[in-house]
């Protein structure tokens, strides 16, 4: 019934790099949309920099009296107890993107996720198919579980091919660090065929480093997430960025919409919604291009 | 600088009815005093009488609570020391005020660097600094970093710095406390020179003969009040002492029986403190007072610091017949050897802590009950120390840094004596101490010896060494160059040994 008073708390990571900025952007955007759509709905969006402060934020949301929690945890395993508490209080819980080791109905009602292993696997498969004997260098994110899942997925993707991984180092999802790591890779390896840097932000630094070194051996860079800049490059047929692997920050919006739906549309919502790690190519790029997004 | 004028002229500086209160304690009460051009006006008084406080008011460091200040007959109120300096009134502080990381020359010219435009001209400043120091009869490298200088050297740098400012009134607050006779003499000569140029000088010292020698007028403070002001010609040092202390100080040094040959407590052989002292050898007997004389930089302090484990050192030391090697003060204190630093501010006291904490710091073990420090007993110990050592302070709640210079010295003595050591090494025991208290400290040292303790006194004041010691060792350039005893204990012989210059009569050791 319209006008019903409902409060949805949204807890997401602070905008500490491009992708999370996208998350914040979409959460904000949809919060406004939803509140305009449903009279009695109040959506509170809170960002947190690390697991401990996110646990605090969840507690603070609970204190304010929420009916549902949409959470994209910075580090799921560390937030299980905090989420559990909300769930145990009988609130609706939608978990987004990052799943703890135990991910079932005891801890959440709804799970909306991108597919981290798939993000790695799609990239790996693409490289294995396009350049089966490529020598690849990898720039990782931060040492947290989702990063590890992507690495494992990648290894699975190249399984059976002759693709060879030369090196993996952390670039901390930062452009500056990726630039530094790439410069050193270029020094270290006389021949590199492909760079997999799993993130569009880091790709910015990688491309600059390659351009500066004027190296021609690098055939292409595979990034990921689906930022507007990288999608644009794919659309324009940039040889260095032939594809991008989708990992849409808008998934938080999906979760929020589904959650609101569970209160206002009388549709029972539960279960898992796994978004594909779609491979964006020149052919389909147009449909993933959002020029207004900050990301 | 202005030309000399006669004494009937308007005083350069005229203080009228100055009073100063810190918190609830009134440390100066209604003091009036003048400085005329070309005169040296000495201010004397016991420790804590308020001399330094008065000088700080005159030089703009403190604001008086009441009273006024006239410069050339004009009422004046200084906003700070820099303002006073602009009017030609400069102060050589009792405490060292130098930037430890800068060189001697940089300190001397700090705040008024020479140079073109924004740049500094280090060469010229180094020359100027070297000259200023030479004028004081000293020899210090203008490029030396101040933190590496001895206290005496720092004091000289400080004097040089102040004398380079254009000045009309120069205030010296115990400038000679850490100087040896040679430097003192050079300084007195400098003072005579500037007096001749019509500069007014205020001079504080506890060395009364010095006051007699240099001053035209003497003003005596007691408990923050002005008790007397006389032409110097009317006063002998003994009179001054009486005015200061309020009683006769007839005999400064206690009677002592020449020590009989008793067992040796401390035996030092082939002792090296790398860079400072070489091949030192001496023996200290029970109940003996052994003096160490020498010039500044002779290495006496460093030798003692090496002995108690404050510096790396090697050599044979036997204590009570057993070989010992102290690697830190903890071990030497435990054995019963205590060392009192000459640098009371830097190494002796925690200036920002109260008297109680300072007093018991080295001997906290004695004040433990269960797991806790027994604060009541600490308080009692403080009361006793204040009584025994006559520490003058308006309130016991004061911080150590707020005590007058001489009272800090007494607190340091009290602190180390709480340890009840068998051997006491006292470095410059009476630096900055007034004559009445000196007498007490000497008596105290003598009584320690009478109790069977052994004492080493390192001092730059030869009369004091001669007055209280059984024997005196003389150091020069890091070596013990001789020993004087009995009737050989004269300033002349000691100076010869210390400088290595045979200035005539008897050649010693």
């Amino acid at each position, binding site marked *: 019934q319209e006008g019903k008073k409902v409060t949805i708390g949204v807890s997401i990571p602070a905008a500490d790099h491009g992708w999370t900025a996208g998350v914040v952007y979409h959460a904000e955007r949809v919060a406004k949309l939803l509140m305009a759509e449903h009279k009695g709905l109040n959506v509170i969006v809170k960002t947190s920099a690390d697991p401990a402060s996110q646990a605090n934020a969840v507690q603070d949301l609970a204190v304010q009296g929420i009916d549902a929690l949409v959470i994209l945890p910075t580090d799921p395993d560390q937030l299980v107890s905090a989420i559990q508490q909300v769930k145990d209080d009988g609130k609706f819980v939608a978990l987004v993107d990052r799943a703890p080791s135990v991910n079932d109905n005891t801890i959440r009602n709804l799970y909306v996720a991108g597919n981290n292993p798939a993000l790695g696997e799609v990239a790996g498969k693409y490289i294995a198919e396009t350049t089966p004997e490529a020598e690849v260098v990898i720039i990782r994110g931060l040492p947290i579980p989702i990063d590890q899942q992507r690495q494992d997925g990648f290894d699975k993707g190249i399984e059976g091919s002759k693709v060879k991984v030369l090196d993996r180092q952390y670039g901390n999802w930062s452009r500056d660090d990726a630039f530094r790591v790439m410069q050193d890779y270029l020094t270290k390896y006389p021949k590199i065929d492909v760079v997999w840097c799993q993130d569009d932000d880091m790709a910015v630094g990688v491309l600059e480093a390659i351009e500066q070194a004027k190296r021609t051996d690098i055939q292409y860079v595979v990034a990921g997430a689906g930022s507007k800049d990288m999608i644009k490059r794919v659309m324009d047929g940039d040889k260095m960025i032939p594809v991008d692997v989708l990992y849409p920050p808008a998934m938080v919006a999906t979760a929020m919409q589904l959650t609101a739906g569970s209160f206002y549309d009388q549709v029972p919502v539960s279960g898992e919604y796994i978004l594909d790690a779609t491979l964006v190519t020149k052919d389909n790029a147009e449909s993933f291009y959002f020029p207004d997004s900050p990301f | 600088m202005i030309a000399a004028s006669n004494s009937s002229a308007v005083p350069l500086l005229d203080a009228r009815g100055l009073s100063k209160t810190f918190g609830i304690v009134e440390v100066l009460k209604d003091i009036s005093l003048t400085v005329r051009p070309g005169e040296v006006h000495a201010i004397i008084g016991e420790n804590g009488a308020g001399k330094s406080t008065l000088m700080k008011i005159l030089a703009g460091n403190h604001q008086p609570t009441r009273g006024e200040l006239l410069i050339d007959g004009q009422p004046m109120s200084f906003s700070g020391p820099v303002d006073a300096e602009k009017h030609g009134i400069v102060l050589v502080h009792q405490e060292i005020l130098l930037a430890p990381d800068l060189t001697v020359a940089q300190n001397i010219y700090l705040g008024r660097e020479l140079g073109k435009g924004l740049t500094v001209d280090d060469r010229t400043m180094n020359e100027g600094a070297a000259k200023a120091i030479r004028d004081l009869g000293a020899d210090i490298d203008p490029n030396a970093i101040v933190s590496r200088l001895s206290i005496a050297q720092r004091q000289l740098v400080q004097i040089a710095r102040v004398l380079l400012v254009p000045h009309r009134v120069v205030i010296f607050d115990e400038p000679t406390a850490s100087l040896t006779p040679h430097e003192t003499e050079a300084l007195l000569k400098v003072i005579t020179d500037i007096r001749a140029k019509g500069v007014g000088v205020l001079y504080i010292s506890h060395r009364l003969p010095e006051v007699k020698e240099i001053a035209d007028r003497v003003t005596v403070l007691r408990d923050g009040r002005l008790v007397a002001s006389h032409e110097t010609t009317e006063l002998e040092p003994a009179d001054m002492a009486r005015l200061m202390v309020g009683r006769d100080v007839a005999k400064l040094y206690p009677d002592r029986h020449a020590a009989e040959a008793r067992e040796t407590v401390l035996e030092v052989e082939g002792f090296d403190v790398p860079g400072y002292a070489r091949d030192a050898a001496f023996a200290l007997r029970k109940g003996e007072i052994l003096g160490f004389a020498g010039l500044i930089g002779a290495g006496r302090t460093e030798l003692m610091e090496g002995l108690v484990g404050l510096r790396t050192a090697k050599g044979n030391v036997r204590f009570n017949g057993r070989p010992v090697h102290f690697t830190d003060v903890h071990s030497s204190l435990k054995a019963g050897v205590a060392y009192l630093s000459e640098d009371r501010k*830097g190494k002796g006291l925690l200036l*920002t802590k109260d008297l109680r904490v300072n007093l018991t710091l080295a001997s906290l073990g004695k004040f433990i009950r269960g797991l806790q*420090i027994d604060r009541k007993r600490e308080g009692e110990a403080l009361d006793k120390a204040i009584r025994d050592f006559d520490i003058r302070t308006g309130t016991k709640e004061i911080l150590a840094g707020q005590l007058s210079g001489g009272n800090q010295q007494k607190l340091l003595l009290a602190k180390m004596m709480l340890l009840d050591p068998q051997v006491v090494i006292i470095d410059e025991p009476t630096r900055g101490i007034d004559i009445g208290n000196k007498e007490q400290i000497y008596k105290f040292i003598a009584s320690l010896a009478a109790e069977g303790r052994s004492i080493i006194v390192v001092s730059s004041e030869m009369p004091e060494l001669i007055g209280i010691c059984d024997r005196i060792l003389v150091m020069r350039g890091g070596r013990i160059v001789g020993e004087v005893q009995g009737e050989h204990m004269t300033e002349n012989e000691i100076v010869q040994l210390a400088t290595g210059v045979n200035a005539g009569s008897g050649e010693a050791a």
Partner: protein
Amino acid sequence: MNAAVTDTSKAPKTSKDWDMAAIAPFVALALLLVLGYFANPNFVSLANLTNVITRSAFIAIIALGATYVISSGGLDLSVGSMVAFVASLMIMFMNSGAIADPMMMLVAGMLVALALGAACGLANGLITTVGKIEPFIATLGTMGIYRGLTTWLSQGGSITLRDRELQQLYRPVYFGDVFGVPIPIIVIFVTAALAAFVLYRTRYGRHLIAVGSNEEVARYSGISVQRVRTIAYVVQGLCVAVAVLIYVPRLGSTSATTGILWELQAITAVVVGGTALRGGVGRIWGTVCGAFILEIVGNIMLLSNFVSEYLIGAIQGAIIIIAMLVQRTLMRK
């Protein structure tokens, strides 16, 4: 060295002044509470305040150790990484299944954590004192080391307490309460009382302050400066371990990002509490108050809905500066 010159031009700092300096953080805290009430009336609810104070426990307890290190004239930047390192090893130990009985295992795990904390602190202490390296650099180095080792132990992922039974047993240490007072709050106050006792009432505490106040004077008074400083770092390590003891039951897992920037928060709590970074003064209760202030500032930000989440950091920074200004103004009175 003769550098220390007291500014004697000011009135003597008698007990009165000290009291003002000690009270200032509490006044700032009170003002914050009022501010919080206006931001959101829920703020002053018992539930919220209990939550806030409970979760300030980690920083508060770590900051108690930092008070020791800082008043001795040192600094420890490694505490955040040390939390991650100690917690990871503790969980790995409890996952190892070396002891069958969960209760015994839990106790053993706690002891392991304490021993590890002390060992890490000892390492920091020895590097700064015996190695004579500026504490800033020494502990920046060990910060890298502890963090790196944690990353390596977790192989880039997270380390989670696996045994359900153990988890259930351990959980109340964070979530439980005694007569309605959450256990972490009790731990804060017990640790602080202990820390205050040692700092203000024992010989070691006196020596610590002496060392921080003037190293040379301490040395000349027969105090072993190196030993005193080293012990301060060990105390810091133990405090980290105590924080770990209540941290692990809360989230039940750690990763390479656990405790990031906690060192800054701990130091901030100490300074906001009135302890000067140059050493020689230590205010235990001020530190506890400082940790509360930090957590409350964050809480108010979260509860008030006026502030764009992008600006939270900016407002927090501004509030801390204002809190310090309030303190200074009070102290100068």
